[in-house]
């Protein structure tokens, strides 16, 4: 990791830990001066940026940000799936699944591989038909697939313009909104190449930004953080909470069971254990 990349990473880690921006700039500037004068490699001088940022946060008394409490009570029901049954050939994947999510709520869909998490999300998005059951949707929908969903030969700004036109946004506004969402995920898409040249994690950021463009009321996110580094993963949850505070309804497929304290509803699709629990 070169000095510039290390300093950039340090800046991001300090921001994620809620350090005052002025203080963060000061810390980064001090580190830069030290590295220049000492001619040391940053990892040798300070260690990994996240560890150094944690030490700085501890020394100034800034707590590491965890899941914030919801700022307001949930609103009306936006997404209601009832009695969803789906079979693939002779195997029953979903057996009478119910899910209700309100405005200002995050629901996590969890379960083992192959238990139907992505299938349920695609059914909720109307991209796949169930064998039985119905989904009631109030408002507009944004969908982030687990993979695909982008065009290999378009650059990020063109993706924003394409989705934005569908949402009735002007091109300039769509590109600005896309770049702003991307910045919240610590990604600068200006000048980025075609999607086929993006790393897996960056491509998923593009996917996530596209899902949020145009302020849809309901966001369906299918493991959107695949390939994210730790910092991006933290940014991702902060973005989710920001959307929740703005009254969005969010359903996120995840297999990371240690993150369930961050959501309001958990739907476990593990066979023989299909339950909907509220936090």
């Amino acid at each position, binding site marked *: 990791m070169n000095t510039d990349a290390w300093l950039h990473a340090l800046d991001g880690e300090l921001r994620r830990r809620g350090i005052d921006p002025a203080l963060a700039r000061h810390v980064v500037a001090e580190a830069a001066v030290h590295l220049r004068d000492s001619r040391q490699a940053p990892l040798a001088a300070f260690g990994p940026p996240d560890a150094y940022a944690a030490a700085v946060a501890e020394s100034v008394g800034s707590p590491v940000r965890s899941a914030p409490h919801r700022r307001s009570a949930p609103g009306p029901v936006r997404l209601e799936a009832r009695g969803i049954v789906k079979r693939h050939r002779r195997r029953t994947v979903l057996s009478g699944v119910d899910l209700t999510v309100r405005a200002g709520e995050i629901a996590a869909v969890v379960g083992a591989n192959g238990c139907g998490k992505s299938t349920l999300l695609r059914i909720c998005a109307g991209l796949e038909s169930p064998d039985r059951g119905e989904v009631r949707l109030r408002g507009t929908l944004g969908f982030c*697939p687990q993979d695909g969903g982008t065009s290999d*030969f378009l650059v990020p700004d063109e993706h924003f313009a394409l989705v934005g036109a569908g949402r009735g946004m002007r091109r300039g506004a769509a590109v600005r909104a896309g770049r702003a969402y991307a910045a919240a995920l610590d990604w600068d898409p200006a000048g980025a190449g075609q999607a086929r040249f993006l790393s897996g994690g960056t491509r998923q950021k593009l996917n996530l930004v596209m899902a949020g463009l145009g302020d849809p009321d309901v966001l369906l996110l299918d493991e959107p953080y695949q390939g994210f580094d730790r910092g991006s993963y933290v940014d991702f949850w902060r973005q989710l909470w920001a959307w929740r505070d703005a009254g969005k309804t969010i359903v996120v497929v995840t297999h990371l069971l240690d993150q369930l304290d961050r959501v309001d509803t958990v739907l476990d699709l593990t066979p023989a254990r299909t339950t909907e629990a509220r936090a």
Partner: protein
Amino acid sequence: MIKVLTVAEMTVREILRRRAVLVIILMLPLAFYLSRRGDHLGQSIRFVCLGLGWALSTAALFSGSAARGLEPRLRLSGYGTGHLYAGRLAALWTLGLVLSAPYFLLIRVDADRVEHGAIALIMLLTVAVAAPFGLVLSVLVPRELEGTLLLLTVVGLQMMMDPAGSAARLLPFWFSREIATYAVDHTDGGYLARGLTHGTVCALALTVLAMTLASIRLRRRPHLRPVT
């Protein structure tokens, strides 16, 4: 209209960035033309029209296949199936016309004893047929490879089958040989009329079929009920 134009613009951008494919598409009709240029100019003209059809069908196939993952989410982002289909088709037709123009000029300069108006008609009909034909294949076959092999089969049959046989009329580019015979050999107007009818029917049928298949693939499922 903005939605259609945006899809058309992005489709053109995607195709223009497939540089290797683009070079092959541009050069393929030329190779067909040069293959019989020395001994049989009429056959060269027939082949160049087939080459244009194959090249544009391939571009449409690649474009349609590449859009498979993106179009469902665009449907959820406010696009209708008609916007997506019309935009893609408009882009492909435009590309086909641009691709045809230099070959028409080549024939105009290189062959003076042919009906140039009829050659222009073949090229117009070829563009009109080839784009929806490639889009139909992109829906019916799961991958580009299978689609390319199917296109190869169709164009190969088109070259080998006796155009006077009734089975040859089932092929989408049969009209090009009929009209080319009129244009090159100065036969009676029956060739022109049959070719024009065949080409028009093929273009309309394939356009409607491609739209129908797109509508089925991107349909709104009835289990999803919007509540207002």
